[in-house]
């Protein structure tokens, strides 16, 4: 036979790899760019906030307590005179460590569970899925309460609580993607090589379900931020004297009645903006993978 088809078709639209394709499409998505800009702003604050915050966020100044926003204290001061602006800027640090780590834990655990249930199906799927559903039925707050009693309050506890609460949701997404992949012939081909279940799941199937996992992870990150803030507000999460947003709202919201709105509003806006930023970015990621 001749040299049939030994040269590949001249088609330069194929040159870009799938990853580059996604990055390219992300960079063209206005939603993603706005979202990621907001998130990056807070990430910069978390890393370098103390260098450009006008005051020490922890330094009290009782004489100037509860002073309204002014040119000196842009966002005013709280009940022991700490500068609210500086606290908002530095306050992103804890939430931006705890929430991503919790999401990471949820993704890793959820992916493993999703692969197991989707690959083995049958009895394994029935048992694990029912347990996960039961787990999803318990409110995060109750899980948190139980965990704090058992493990004591710490950032690690918050990470574990949120991570494990979100894992079943990610597991469900991964499971449905795996169920579809499993029907493809490359899985049968792997079985015809006597590959182990572990190899088939993690080497053959996993790379093909990365897109839905990435989308789900970014979406979960938004919820995780919200959850961390909620737990801090309820006193289960990050502990004083951290300038954490949820914690600040919790310790100051009693003041709103007295007209000291600035002690709460700016922290609340910070949480909102970060959640919105993450969600916009998640939206962009979703769009890039589903175009």
């Amino acid at each position: 036979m001749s040299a049939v088809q030994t040269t590949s078709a001249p088609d330069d639209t194929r040159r870009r790899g799938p990853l580059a394709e996604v990055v390219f499409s992300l960079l063209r998505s206005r939603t993603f760019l706005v979202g990621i800009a907001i998130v990056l702003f807070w990430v910069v604050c978390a890393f370098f906030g103390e260098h450009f915050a006008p005051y020490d966020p922890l330094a009290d100044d009782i004489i100037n307590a509860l002073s309204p926003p002014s040119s000196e204290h842009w966002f005013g001061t709280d009940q022991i005179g700490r500068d609210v602006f500086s606290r908002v800027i530095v306050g992103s640090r804890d939430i931006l460590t705890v929430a991503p780590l919790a999401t990471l834990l949820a993704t890793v655990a959820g992916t493993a569970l999703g692969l197991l249930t989707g690959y083995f199906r049958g009895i394994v799927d029935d048992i694990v899925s029912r347990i996960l559903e039961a787990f999803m039925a318990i409110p995060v707050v109750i899980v948190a309460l139980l965990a704090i009693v058992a493990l004591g309050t710490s950032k690690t506890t918050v990470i574990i609580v949120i991570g494990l609460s979100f894992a079943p949701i990610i597991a469900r997404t991964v499971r449905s993607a795996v169920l579809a992949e499993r029907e493809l012939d490359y899985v049968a081909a792997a079985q015809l090589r006597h590959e182990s279940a572990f190899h088939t799941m993690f080497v053959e199937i996993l790379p093909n379900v990365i897109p839905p996992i990435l989308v789900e992870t970014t979406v979960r990150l938004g919820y995780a931020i919200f959850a961390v803030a909620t737990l801090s507000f309820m006193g289960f999460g990050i502990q004083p004297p951290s300038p954490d947003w949820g914690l600040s709202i919790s310790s100051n919201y009693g003041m709103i009645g007295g007209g000291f709105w600035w002690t709460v509003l700016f922290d609340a806006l910070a949480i909102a903006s970060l959640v919105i930023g993450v969600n916009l970015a998640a939206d962009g990621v979703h769009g890039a993978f589903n175009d």
Partner: protein
Amino acid sequence: MTEPAKAQSAKTRGTKTPNANARNALELNDLSVAYRVGGRDRAVLRNLSLTIGQGEAYGLVGESGCGKSTAALAVVRYLPRNGSISGGAIALDGQDVMKLDAEALRRARATSVSMVYQDPGKALNPSIRIGRQLTEIFELAGISGKAAEDRAIAMLNRVRISDPPSVMQRYPHQLSGGMQQRVAIAMALANDPTMLILDEPTTGLDATVEAEVLDLIAQLRQELSASILFISHNLAVVSHMCDRVGVLYAGMLVEEGPTEVVFNDPRHPYTVALLRCLPRGGQRKDQGRLDTIPGFLPGIGAVIKGCAFADRCALADERCRTELPPLYELSDERGARLSRCHHHDKAQALPRATPSEVATPPKPVAQPVLRVAGLNKTYASHGHPLRAVKDVSLDLRPGETLGLVGESGSGKTTFARLLLGLVPPDDGGTIELEGKALAPKLENRGDDQVKAMQIVFQNPDSALNRSHSIRHLLSRALKRLAGLSGKALETRLEDLVRSVRLTDRHLAVKPRQLSGGLKQRVAIARAFAGDPRIVVCDEPTSALDVSVQAAILNLLADLQAKEDVSYIFISHDLGVVRYLSDKIAVLYLGRIMELGPSEAVFSGPHHPYTEALLSAVPKLDQTGTTRIRLDGEIPSAVNPPSGCVFHTRCPRKIGPICEQQEPPLAEAQPGHAIRCHIPYDELARLQKASVAELA
């Protein structure tokens, strides 16, 4: 239908010459279409001109990617968002489509042009009853209520659907593929269009169903005035359906003329080469290799200086590479025809791209490599047993190919999966590989047994893991199946890649960067990694163009001659099966209806079902043929007919015995067994008689 009926020639000769006075149904004049990809406009259609007369059927053929569907979409201005008409004119029934405003365009689409697409399942709304979808069309035309319903029923009658009122109540998924396509055709014809565009209307259908749909279209042509633009990659189908044919290559018309003339006396090397790629006239692997077309179709938007086909054409000279050939007029008494080739007079002297010679060493008669006895598979379907494979016994010798044929749902793929161990068979049957019994489940088979039986799947996109590079895919197969590693693996990898005619360059890329034919080569290489004894080929070429199909079939035949491997070859394309097979098993509802040497099964006398399958296939070599039509659909395997399972559709049913007693698979000739109550000699007489009747 209970008797072999003589269907009239599919083509209606009366409408053959378009009325010169009438306006043409469709005129494309220098039409150019470009798609915007990666920020650049890329030409897909290049100055395409064609004319379809009133009542004429025009076929557009060519390999995938040459612009057939784009032409169809451009006619109704349905191009995708990144597509645009960059030049030329389209006139539908004398009306300039380019000048229509949105409203006029909508009206034209609603009243004068209709399209039928390849996949009827996608053209029908799955959640709306057939009746509602059909009446809606009449309601749009201003007919309402009972009148619209009556018209819908009349329409379904027209497409030969029995019991239309009950079909009206059903949802699309409750209809078979053939019925769905009839409904889609009914919808297309509802507003009595002047132009009907059929885009691969039978590509996804079984041969028997395809024959039915093609017959229907041919009959409708006599009743309706519609002109037809028929798009297909299947040359035989086009030769059967169309008055004139245009061959498209890289968005350019390269040859045009009356169908019979073009296919029997092609004047463009591309047409010549395409026709040579098809296994025809009972050609077999030991009689010679198929010809192939070297190289690739130019990518979309490629800059073409001379003749677009020059790079792949053995006749091309300097002039071909620099000067775009005009459409030479070659009209003679057989009709007007055009060829875009400087050397149209010697196009048929195109040298073969693939030498035909094969060295076939005489095969020593060896012990069977595979023996299957009493194999059954029963699935549970809503609590009822569904016998997907029933009592199959056969054997296969080294270096032999067993062809499995039958309509979809006949159990071909299930049988293959049983052999491979991907699905466990029912208790009782045995599968023996080289004299040793195989465990029913894959995980209980030894590594040696697993590597000895491999498969090439139908769809390489599904069979090759898209996340892995070709190197990874093949190395892994060599590691697991051949137990190689390190240097030895590298050496073997190189051999393997060369044996399927890929090069090192292909190793670094991912499957998506390869064309369909190259992907299938990778899949074949993977199956051959562990020196298998048996390779199951499950429709390995059904997704490929004919030129690529020819190359893959040649490759399979070469590998078989070299490695003495046996194939189990599943295909619905009987020409392909005939080319590669030494033995044929015809399956119907999971049962073997006929089993024998390939030549005996094809030349007959054969089982009435085989006879029907063979006659359903449109052939290039003959046009008006006697066709045996199978009525209705393959019965459900949950509730198979009593007696002979084929009696409900059998055109040669002899009487109550067929309904009461299942005939045995009796050996009619040494090695040739037929499951039929009609004695072999009687079958021979009947089938000879119907051939004589034809002549």
